[in-house]
């Protein structure tokens, strides 16, 4: 099972390719060494033959055929030249001198030749000879050669060693690849098995670490971190789901109770009309909550940059302030716009309006009745900034991170109308615009700043 997986794994296939390429290179190197050794050894042997030929030529030049015959006769019995062959033949190929009885068929032409022959001095039968033939000025032909059987044997040994080395290397590499691949596949299989178990049973399991701090442990660590994150997110989703269920169940229960009571009561046109009106209003609130949730998800997931234009934050903030002026007036809160006359950002007017409106809405609702809410737009050196400040009770600093969560409501505002989605929407809009949200203590009250990235010029 594991072996089959090993042989079928991509690592092993890669290893095979590497072995193939490596084997080819090693073979090429050996071939080169072989051929260069061969030519070197042959070169030396040929030079020795040529020197011998030169000394024979010299004897011939000095004292003619007689001198040459004498020197050949002397050489044939010389032990130092036992591995040499000599043959001097007259014009009719009749042997005149030398230790060969007849002209070898393989050396019939001029120049270099290799041929097999048996020598009286050699115990073993025939030997491989290499020799050179020349025609002397009197028409005689002279063959000088040498036994190259040793050389041939030496080359055969080199060849055998080379082939053995190549095979050994390939064999070892193959074994090593199988071993390494097997280890890799084994670890991957372990991770796979745990992943399957997690898919089947739940997110509680983690991949065990070997403590080796190698790349496998790092992979396992990262997968574990990913699982932690997924578990947290799932928890969040569950929490949001429960919050939705809670926030929806409340108006739905109210509606149901109201309808049930009306169903059993005698018909009364006026009461029925009021009841239906209230129910529609509650239903609209529920639909509105759905719309907010989908709107936030949509803003969070899409890249709406295509619809971005250069907009003036002051203009948008001015419209928001005007829209909320009446609401502020109702709680005798003073709402005002301050800061630079023009602050430009690249963005989506509708979304920015929605975000600023939510901040102003929060500031009015959670600020001090009769207090002040100030919306400030500024061109900071780091980019455009819009700040909304109130002088109400504020938010404890440790809650800053939580207020952007969906449906999060501070204990103190549990009974203020709202669905806890406003700041989530602000956060989503800010992140789409690449803006940073900062919450600060306004001493007293809350200061919320949206810091936009500096415009690209």
């Amino acid at each position: 099972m594991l072996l089959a997986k090993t042989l079928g794994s991509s690592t092993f296939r890669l290893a095979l390719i590497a072995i193939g390429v490596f084997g080819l290179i090693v073979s090429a190197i050996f071939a080169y060494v072989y051929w260069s050794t061969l030519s070197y050894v042959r070169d030396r042997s040929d030079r020795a033959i040529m020197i011998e030929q030169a000394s024979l030529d010299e004897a011939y030049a000095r004292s003619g055929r007689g001198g040459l015959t004498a020197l050949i006769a002397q050489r044939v019995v010389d032990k130092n030249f036992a591995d040499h062959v000599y043959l001097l033949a007259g014009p009719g190929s009749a042997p005149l001198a030398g230790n060969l009885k007849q002209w070898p068929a393989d050396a019939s032409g001029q120049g270099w030749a290799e041929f097999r022959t048996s020598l009286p001095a050699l115990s073993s039968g025939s030997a491989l000879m290499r020799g050179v033939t020349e025609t002397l000025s009197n028409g005689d032909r002279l063959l000088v050669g040498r036994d190259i059987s040793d050389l041939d044997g030496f080359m055969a040994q080199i060849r055998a060693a080379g082939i053995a080395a190549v095979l050994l290397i390939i064999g070892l590499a193959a074994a090593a690849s199988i071993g390494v691949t097997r280890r890799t596949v084994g670890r991957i299989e372990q991770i796979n098995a745990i992943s399957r178990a997690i898919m089947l049973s739940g997110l509680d399991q983690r991949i065990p670490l070997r403590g080796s701090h190698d790349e496998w442990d790092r992979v396992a660590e990262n997968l574990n971190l990913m699982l932690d994150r997924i578990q947290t997110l799932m928890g969040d989703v569950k929490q949001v789901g429960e919050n939705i269920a809670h926030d929806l169940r409340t108006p739905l229960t109210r509606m149901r109770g109201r309808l049930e009571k009306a169903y059993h009561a005698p018909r009364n046109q006026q009461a029925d009309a009021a009841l239906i009106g209230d129910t529609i209003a509650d239903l609209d609130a529920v639909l509105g909550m759905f719309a907010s949730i989908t709107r936030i998800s949509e803003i969070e997931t899409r890249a709406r940059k295509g619809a971005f234009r250069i907009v003036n934050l002051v203009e948008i903030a001015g419209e928001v302030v005007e829209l909320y002026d009446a609401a502020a007036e109702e709680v005798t809160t003073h709402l005002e716009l301050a800061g630079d006359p023009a602050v430009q950002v690249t963005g989506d007017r509708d979304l920015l309006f929605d975000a600023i409106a939510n901040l102003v809405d929060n500031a009015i609702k959670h600020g001090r009745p009769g207090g002040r809410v100030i919306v400030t737009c500024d061109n900071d050196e780091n980019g455009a900034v819009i700040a909304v400040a109130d002088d109400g009770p504020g938010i404890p600093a440790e809650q800053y991170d939580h207020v952007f969560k969906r449906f999060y409501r501070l204990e103190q505002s549990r009974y203020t109308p709202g669905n806890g989605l406003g700041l989530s929407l602000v956060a989503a809009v800010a992140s789409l615009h690449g803006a940073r949200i900062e919450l600060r203590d306004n001493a007293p009250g809350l200061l919320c700043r949206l810091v936009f990235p500096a415009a690209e010029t």
Partner: protein
Amino acid sequence: MTGAHRRILVVEDDPETAGQLVEELTTSGYEVDLAANGREALSQGAARDYAVITIDRMLPDIDGITVMRQMRDDGIAVPFLIISALGEVDDRVRGLRAGGDDYLVKPFSFVELLARLEALGRRSETVAKETILRVGDLAVDLIARTASRRGRKIPLLPKEFQLLEYLARNEGRVVSRAMLLQHVWDLHFDPSTNIIDVYVGRVRRKVDDQQAYPLIHTIRGIGYCLRAPG
């Protein structure tokens, strides 16, 4: 108002929704034709003169937007009301850009639908180029951008004036909160708060306080209506 201008073409593929629409619109005094798909819509739209065509964006054969474009290319100038389950801003804007005159997101209330149809149908009538709109003793001067009751000027902020102007232009007709947001503030989303009510409340105080009779009426669950008594 001629008979032709009380005739509406409803393009809707879901039989139940279509049935509800036809029933509701017929009760409200419209003559209603129904097209169940894009092809029928194209042939019926070309054959008759309608006051308004309501069109679903998702149709079984041709996309609602394509149908609308096709009719516009054929020179049919009838106002379109897009009805769509796709509620997101991009879809709305795309629908309007493609030649829609107004949109409504499912689920919607029939009162909202009627309010929008009234406003659209009125647009297709020849509107007299009045410079002063009069509702009872209220006069809205569109040139000077001022409003007065019985000759006494009402101090209004620019947006407050725009709101009153929109109500006056739709005198006697119900105007929904969403319509106000769309036409006065150019906002294409529904705010989760009651901010519009608060805003209208303030305009109402300026317009109706210490007067012989109220002009701005709240229509429960829907919006507002500007009308003189009697």
